[in-house]
Each structure stands twice: as C-alpha cells, then as structure tokens.
C-alpha cells in the first residue's frame, strides 16, 4: 500500500513537471517565432580576407643509413637515395635508403627555395681512399611535376653550397595542390678510411615569398 502511494506521488510530480516544461517550451517558441519573418528584403555582404602565407612541410625530414662499414677490400662505399635495388648502397653493410627528403609547399603563395649544407664531404665523412669522400644533392619534382621552376638543372648532382642561404633551387616553388612537392636525393661516397663514429649533417631549407 505504501509503495502504491509512493508511485502515485512520483507519477503526479512527473505529470506536473511535464506540463510546466511543455508550457515553457510553447512560450519560448511563440517568442522566437515572432522574431522570424521569412522575408529577405535587403542584400548582405560577407567579408572575408584570406591572408597570403608561406609555409612548407617536411613530409620526410631525415635520411638514415644506420650503422655500418665499407666492405673489407673495397676502397669506398656508395649511397644513392635516388637509386633502387643493388645500386642504392654498394660495397658496404649499411641499411639502404630510398626515401630522400621531401618538402611540400603548404602555404598559399609561391616561394623561393634555397638549400644549404652545414658541412661538405670532407668534414661530414672525411678520408681519402677511393678518390675521397663525396657528398652531393639532387632535387626533382617528378612525383608532382611542375612543382618547381628550377634555377638549377633537376637532373644534376651538385655539391651543396655552404655559404649564405645556400643554393637557389626553385625560383618558384608552387603551392598548387598536385604540384607542390619536391624531393631531395643524396649521393654519398664513404672512403674506407673515413672518419668513424656517428656522422651527421644538416640541410637548411630557406623560403621566402617569391
């Protein structure tokens, strides 16, 4: 009996709350309705200014060959990130690398692109066997053609510049989707008498509005 009373009270409270809630909703709808006319009698302006910005994304910002050594009896080992198969890394036991570095123009303006190397082959690798160390770069946009209006030939391996902002690569590095990405490949020769230990080099990519 007690339980039945309790249920009855709860039901009455629920009904009262529902009626009050429905009343409030109705009153809000009436008030809101009075603010809507359904007519557009004038023209409006939506003003939006998109600022020109320049930005690049290093989609792959490191090249690693890990640890290794020149094959005993060979004068040097050669790395070529642009090559696939056996010629990617020869006469050494490092891990091959076919990635290179990738830069994408993600801004909304064409930019100039310069590349600078912190060190040359001698400081980076050292040694003299097999003609000495070699450290060269090559830039191409074959994955997204016409990304770069080249200042240098895209088929040429060049010795990285170490002064100023480095070598001017692209007079125009395009931002258009589908033609806004370049790849940097490296050709490295490590002599058998090279410097030992962890070797590292930093490439600086400098951009400015074209």
């Amino acid at each position, binding site marked *: 009996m007690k339980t039945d009373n309790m249920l009855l009270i709860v039901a009455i409270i629920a009904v009262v709350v529902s009626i009050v809630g429905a009343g409030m909703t109705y009153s809000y709808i009436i008030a809101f309705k009075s603010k809507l006319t359904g007519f557009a009698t004038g023209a409006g302006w939506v003003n*939006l*200014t*998109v*600022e*020109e*910005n*320049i*930005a*690049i*994304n*290093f*989609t*792959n*910002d*490191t*090249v*690693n*060959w890990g640890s290794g050594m020149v094959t005993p009896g060979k004068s040097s080992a050669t790395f070529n990130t642009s090559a*696939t*198969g056996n010629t990617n890394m020869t006469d050494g036991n490092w891990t091959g690398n076919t990635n290179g*570095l990738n*830069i994408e123009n*993600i*801004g*909304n*303006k064409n*930019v100039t692109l310069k590349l600078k190397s912190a060190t040359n082959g001698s400081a980076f690798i050292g040694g003299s066997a097999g003609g000495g160390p070699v450290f060269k770069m090559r830039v191409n946009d*074959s*994955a*997204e*053609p*016409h990304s770069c209006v080249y200042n240098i030939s895209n088929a040429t391996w060049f010795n990285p510049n170490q002064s100023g*902002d480095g070598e001017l690569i692209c007079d125009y590095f395009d931002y258009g989707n*589908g*033609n806004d990405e370049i790849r*940097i490949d*490296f050709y490295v020769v490590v002599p058998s008498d090279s410097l030992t230990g962890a*070797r*590292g*080099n*930093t*490439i*600086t*990519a*400098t*951009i*400015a*509005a074209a």
Partner: protein
Amino acid sequence: MKKEAFFAIGLFFIIILSFDAKAVVGVSPGIYEVEFSPGLTENYVFRFIFDEGVDSDVYIEGDLADYVKINKEKLVGGGPVMASVKLPDKIEIPGDHRIYIGSRQLTSPGGTIGIVGNVKGVILIKVPYPGKYAIIDYFYTTNANQGDPINLTLSVGNLGKENINVDSFVEIYDEKNQSIEVIPLGSAALEPTSHKIFSKSISTLNYKPGDYRAVAVVKYDAGELSQQRSFRLGTLYVGISNYTREFQRDKLNQMNIEIESFWNDPIEKVYGEVQIIGYDIKFLTPSVDLKPWQKNQLSGFFDATGIEENKFQANITINYEGQKTNKIVDLKFKRETDYALYALVGGGIFFGIFIISLVIAMVILFIRMKKNEKSPLKERGVEKDAKKNK
C-alpha cells in the same frame, strides 16, 4: 585589431593545410608590400610557425635592415614578431627593396642527414622610378588536356612617377619553336603605383598535345617587356620511359618499369603485363595510380629458368583507362662469374706449387742422406790419425 584578425585567419588556414604534417615551418603573412613614402614609420607583425618546442632565432636582412627594429630575437615553437620600420626621407636607388624578417630553426631533427627550416617574411618597399617605368609582376599559364582551355594571367605594374599606357599580348610557340598564335590580352592606362591584371582563356582545339611556350609581351610608352612560361597539353597516354635491362640466369628476377603520364588528370589503376617473347613466361604487375604528368614505377617478378639465350626480348604492355601502350624491349642476362673455373685454376696452381715444393724437399733430403753416409768414415779416419799422433 584588423591585423590580428588577418593573423588568425592566416593561422587557421595554415593549421588546416598542415594537418597531419610532420614538421612545418612558415610565416604569416609572407609579405607586406609598401609604397615608399619619405620618413615612413609603421609596425609590421609576422607570425612565425614552427613545431611545438622548436627553438629558432629571429634576424633582419636586406639593404634597409638598418631602418628596422624587432621586438624579439628568439622564439620557441614560433610566435609573433613585430618589426618597427622607420624609413629615411629619401632612398637613392629606385625599385624593389626587400627587408627580410627571418626565423631560423636551431635544432636539427637528427638522423644522418636532417633538414631544418629557415623562413623569411618580407617587407617589400617599392621606391618609384623617375619618369615612366613598367614591370611585369607575374605571368602564369596552366596545363590542360588537348582541347581543354588554357588560362593566361598577366599582371603589369607602373613603378614610375608618371602615368603610362600599356598594351599586352601573348605569343604561343610550339616544340619546334615556331610561332603558332598571337593572343591579344588588352590595354590599359596605369597611374603610378597601380597594377593591372589581364586574364584570358584560350581554346586548344587546334593545338596538338605536347609542350608549348607562351611569351607575354607588354608594350608601353617607354619600352617593351616580355616574360615566358611553358605549358603542356596532355593526351591520354602512358609512356614507358625506362625499364630493367639485365637479369640473372636461372633465378627469380625483379623487373622494374618506369612509366610516365602525359595526361593532365589522374589516371587510376595502371598496371603492366610482360611477356617474354618465345617463352611461356608472362607476369602482371600490381597497379598504381598516376597523378597528372607523373612518373611512377611498376614492378613484377619472373622466373628466368629455361631461357637459354644470353639476349632475349619482352613485350611490355601498360594498361590504363581501357587503353594499352606496347613496347618490345631487348633484355639480357648479366655476365656471371664462373666460380668453378676459378676454383679449378686456383686449385691447380696450388697443387702444382705443392708438388714442386715436395720434389724440392725430397731432393734436399736425399742430398743430406748422402752426406750422412759419408761422414762416419771421415770421423773414423780422424780418430786413427789421433792415435798415431799419440
């Protein structure tokens, strides 16, 4: 407040565009273009973008750098930098003067070779030339497929102190460098510091697929300017630009085929089919998608067991969009090192040296034995002589 709104919008777009980026460097805005006025004093804010926690320094460059001060010299994870410019009353050299407000990443990402960013915001001070002076700000062309329109866009600016009249047209040259069409873009009267953009869409129905050169020419009161751009007209064709030529005999070999799109739109599901001519050897490659004008590589494997000749041929077929590109190519086996012969010759030489050494050793032993047979008699003779002396 207005500049802050600009930065917010610029930053928003960079964040959207750089979604899923690995490492981003940038600056917003990239450039302020300013017409020179004597003693100009103004503040320009650049918002630099680096990944969170990345240290960078801030610097000023350019021939007018002495007239600029910045409010920060270091940044962590990017941020705004205010450049306060106070120009002199007169700049002797007319033309564009670029002041760079740059920020250079100080920390390397590591690796054997790592790349860091150095981004420069530009304050472009435009000093007017005396008299009449026009420039081509930019000239762009677009690529298209044969039959589709090409867009030409040319911007001309008056950088002189006097009004000028400009008349512009574009001349199209084909791959043989022969002029095939002249397209007038229009004319305009330009006041000092003003710019005019000419745009035109041209039909390519009468053009053949291939590479073209567009030369924009602007004639004005004091001279003539020109600038050229190249553009391509595509055709639905995928070419074979390179392929693996040498293989190993009696082994499973990988064959790579480099393909190139001559189409200005993406081509999906491109795959290769290779038939070794004269043998029942055939393989398919997995398919790849090609972006406009993109080069890509197809790879497949075949077993060379049973191919007897040193040189053989294959028929490569590239399949795409219901079309095929065929090419019969010459292939060959690599010259293999004959280790058995090397082992036989090396073993023979070693065996010969061993036999010669053995013979020499036997001769020496024989001579010594002969000597030993003689020496006891001599020793006995010596003993007899000693007894006689006693």
